[in-house]
């Protein structure tokens, strides 16, 4: 496996959101506008890369019995640092993201990559794997964010693209797009689209329904 593969594979083929269905909670919460989605993407990618690198660096010395707690401690510290940085340098955005930056700690994606990849691989591949997964997550967030902000408010990055009815134009914003369920629908449709294009992503069903015998 070449090094670039670590970055490119999680974009579509092994996308953490659409294939592994991880990080859905924050994907629902922060995608009402593109600017919050972008900030969240950058924050998560930074945490993922940094925590993967650090955990990979000390992986030979993490006792198996306390490995999860060591990983979580490192991840949580990174998240606090990122949160503090946002509050100091991007105050407005951090107000709008409110608790969701802090909740990166509980994002299964970060711990998932630490446990599945960084614990077993050298520093560089781990960091690249973190970057790839962060970008994969970001890609989905940006797509969902674009759709939700455009149809929900008629803007992109806060700039009016079409004139809404409220401002005397023709565009009637879709209120549903500003609510969490719409993100579910959009992610669902994305999963469907990707799996239609790449049938190998379709999971084999665990159980098969059998015809009941002796019943007519």
């Amino acid at each position, binding site marked *: 496996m070449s090094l670039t593969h670590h970055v490119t594979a999680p974009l579509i083929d092994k996308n953490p959101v659409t294939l592994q269905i991880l990080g859905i909670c924050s994907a629902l919460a922060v995608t009402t506008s593109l600017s919050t989605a972008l900030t969240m993407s950058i924050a998560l990618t930074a945490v993922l890369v940094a925590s993967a690198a650090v955990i990979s660096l*000390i992986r030979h010395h993490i*006792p198996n*019995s306390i490995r999860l707690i*060591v990983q979580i*401690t*490192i991840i949580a510290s990174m998240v*606090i640092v990122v949160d*503090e940085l946002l509050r100091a340098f991007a*105050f407005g955005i951090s107000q709008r993201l409110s608790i969701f930056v802090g909740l990166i700690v509980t994002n299964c994606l970060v711990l998932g990559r630490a446990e599945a990849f960084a614990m077993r691989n050298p520093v560089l591949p781990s960091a690249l794997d973190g970057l790839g997964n962060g970008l994969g997550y970001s890609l989905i967030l940006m797509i969902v964010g674009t759709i939700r902000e455009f149809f929900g408010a008629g803007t992109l990055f806060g700039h009016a693209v079409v004139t809404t009815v409220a401002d005397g134009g023709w565009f009637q914003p879709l209120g549903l797009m500003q609510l969490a369920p719409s993100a579910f629908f959009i992610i669902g449709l994305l999963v469907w689209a990707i799996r239609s294009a790449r049938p190998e992503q379709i999971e084999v069903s665990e159980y098969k329904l059998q015809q009941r015998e002796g019943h007519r």
Partner: protein
Amino acid sequence: MTEPQNFWRRFLARPNDDRGKAIGIAVIVAFVCAVVVSTTSVLLKPRQDAHLEAERAARMAAMLDTLPGMRDLMQEVGVTALETRMVNLSTGRFTDDVDPAGYDATEAAADPETSIEIPSDADIAGIRRRETYAPVHLLERDGELMLLVLPMRATGYQSTIHVMLALEPDLRTVAALSITDHGETPGIGSRITDPAFIDRWPGKQVADDTGAIVIEVVRGTASGPYEVDAISGATRSSNAIGSMLSFWLGDLGYGPFLDRLEQEGL
């Protein structure tokens, strides 16, 4: 010189399932993380506080801008911002015991030392505890009150709503109302910040001629100076603002302070 290095090497060479190593690694990781987190926090604190302060000032400025003639009046008095003074809510008097800079009302309300518990039947704003000292913002000209701005809060549908209420010098007429902070449902309760709702407040009377607080948020057709229309679909968020005013202007809120202002002036 080589002694600590050897010790370190021997520590790292111990098997990973060794109990001593597990504890050692846990301590080291925790310590390094703690240092990193606290260093960032301490280094960035001044910047964050500056943002919070700027935001508060911006909200206040935005509200003052909505008041016709207020900027001219301030220029006449020769100030660029309102004066902030601390009030002891129990006595209704100004106090110098507390510095308004950096005062956090929510924090003070959580501390039994600096707050009182509100009896549950009187707690219409749903805030449980009320701080003893509150910062009020005012504009005075030649010892005469020109504008009074009171911070308030109440529990809304799913969050605490923070409000600045600006009163005319008669202490009864609403000059402006500004939502400074809330976490209501986006697109539903969050409409309390819309101009469509905020603009319903200026000119309303909070108290009748006897001084009783009668302002109310009503559903449907508000009539007269004491009633404000709720936002349809966001009744609970709107009502919270009505109860907030009733509570904070009442005896357990700014009531004693307002009474004293009315009788004695500033």
